[in-house]
């Protein structure tokens, strides 16, 4: 059953009065309950735009986005969603526990439940020894880890992660990967946007490849490898992107 769905989701960015740039073009995507779904694509391919449209941070030019059959402006839907933005920034004048407490209160968690959840999460992301440290003194990796904890504060059914391993060292990357798999075991649905092909290859059940705002391919890795006669994800990624660029070049006469 699709728990996240987009129907012809389109976003055009206006530049000046007449020019528009495609952010996303008629994207139809469906993420099933309990799976890890990876969104791949080069920079500017529309990955983050897609996530922002799903979460109601941006508004679509046309088409629809649904999470649990609810539109992005539905605040009840957001009660069940956790989001980790790319390169997260938080209130640097707060300590880790204060930040988590603030977010817990926005989810209306009762104080006892919030307290034990905060302890649990700080242990999970190994920040229990930095409880008194203000976030302005955190390293990039620590910020990423507190971000992960913040996205899990409401024990969400759906997790949306935008580049969760950016800035993490190899051990941090491995821990995040293990955490994703653990969350999947708990029945969570995870929508993951990432540049790291190896990470996606290891954890995702299905993937989607975006380029220039278009959804080029979607399916299981094995299925797509067969379809595109690719050896592995890197090969598949390069082939789909190059095929698309060649098609565009032929149509616009760029190659001639």
């Amino acid at each position, binding site marked *: 059953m699709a728990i996240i769905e987009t129907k012809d989701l389109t976003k055009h960015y206006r530049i000046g009065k007449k020019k528009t740039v495609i952010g996303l073009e008629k994207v139809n995507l469906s993420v099933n309950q309990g799976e890890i779904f990876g969104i791949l694509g080069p920079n500017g391919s529309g990955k983050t735009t897609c996530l922002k449209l799903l*979460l*109601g*941070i*941006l*508004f679509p030019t046309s088409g629809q986005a649904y999470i649990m059959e609810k539109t992005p402006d539905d*605040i*009840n839907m*957001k*009660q069940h*969603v956790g*989001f980790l*933005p790319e*390169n*997260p*920034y*938080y*209130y640097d*004048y707060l300590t880790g526990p204060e930040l988590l407490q*603030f*977010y817990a*209160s*926005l*989810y*209306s968690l009762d104080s006892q439940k919030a307290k034990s959840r905060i302890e649990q999460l700080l242990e999970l992301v190994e920040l229990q020894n930095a409880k008194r440290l203000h976030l302005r003194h955190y390293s990039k990796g620590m910020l990423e880890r507190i971000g992960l904890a*913040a996205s899990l504060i409401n024990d969400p059914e759906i997790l949306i992660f935008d580049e969760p391993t950016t800035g993490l060292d190899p051990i941090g990357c491995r821990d995040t990967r293990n955490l994703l798999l653990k969350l999947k075991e708990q029945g969570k649905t995870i929508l993951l946007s990432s540049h790291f092909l190896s990470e996606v290859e290891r954890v995702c059940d299905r993937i989607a490849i975006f380029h220039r705002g278009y959804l080029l391919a979607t399916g299981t890795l094995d299925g797509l490898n067969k379809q595109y006669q690719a050896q592995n994800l890197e090969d598949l990624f390069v082939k789909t992107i190059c095929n698309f660029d060649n098609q565009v070049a032929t149509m616009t006469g760029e190659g001639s």
Partner: protein
Amino acid sequence: MKKMWLIGLNTFRESIRKKMLYIILIFALIVIGASKLFSFLTAEEELKMIKDVSFSAIEFFGALMAIFGSLYAISAEIERRTIYTLLTKPIRRSDFVLGKFFGVSMIVLVNFILMTVFFIGLLLFKKSPPDLQVFKTLLLIFFELILIGGITLALGTFTSDAFNIICSFFLYIVGHLTSYGKELVERTENIIVRGLTDMLYTLVPNYENFNIRDKIVVGLNVSWGYVGYTILYGILYVCIALYVALYFFEKREI
């Protein structure tokens, strides 16, 4: 309502931790300096000067706090991208905007109370306890500051920081001059100038309505009726400003 309060509280906590209230030290220095400077005057004259300087300083530093507090309340959230983590939580955009307004109002209130306590302490030190007229003046200054904050916040939902700051200070200055401008223009025959002034007079809140200190300092009385009417006038403008803020922020992409 609870989420609005939580956002307001977080905005207030930020200002405390980032030591925004240090501006009060400057106020204290000016008022103490003024009391020393006018000590050669007669006791009565000195008291008038202290009141005048203190009212002006409370208004000016309060306005700075209201403008800069409101200016960064929304734009800083967008700039440092903390807004992504807020708007993806179960809160409405209206909770966010109104929460920010309450947060800035709390900052203005605490700043105002501290300056007022200092000012009253000085009056008591000079053996001249404040009368009701002093409190009426302070009450109107407070509502003026809330209005200034509301207008800056509204402008911040659809303009850049630079434009907002210019506009806010422009409105602050023009808002204090509209009455004089209207009086001057009433003597002119030019219909265009008259029309423009009328428009400006209607659109721009008349901050001079909140200024009763010139009367109070020279010992004149201002009725509660006038104070009540002016407060209502301020609340009406705040409501309009918040409506504008909500309208633009609901449509804003981040």
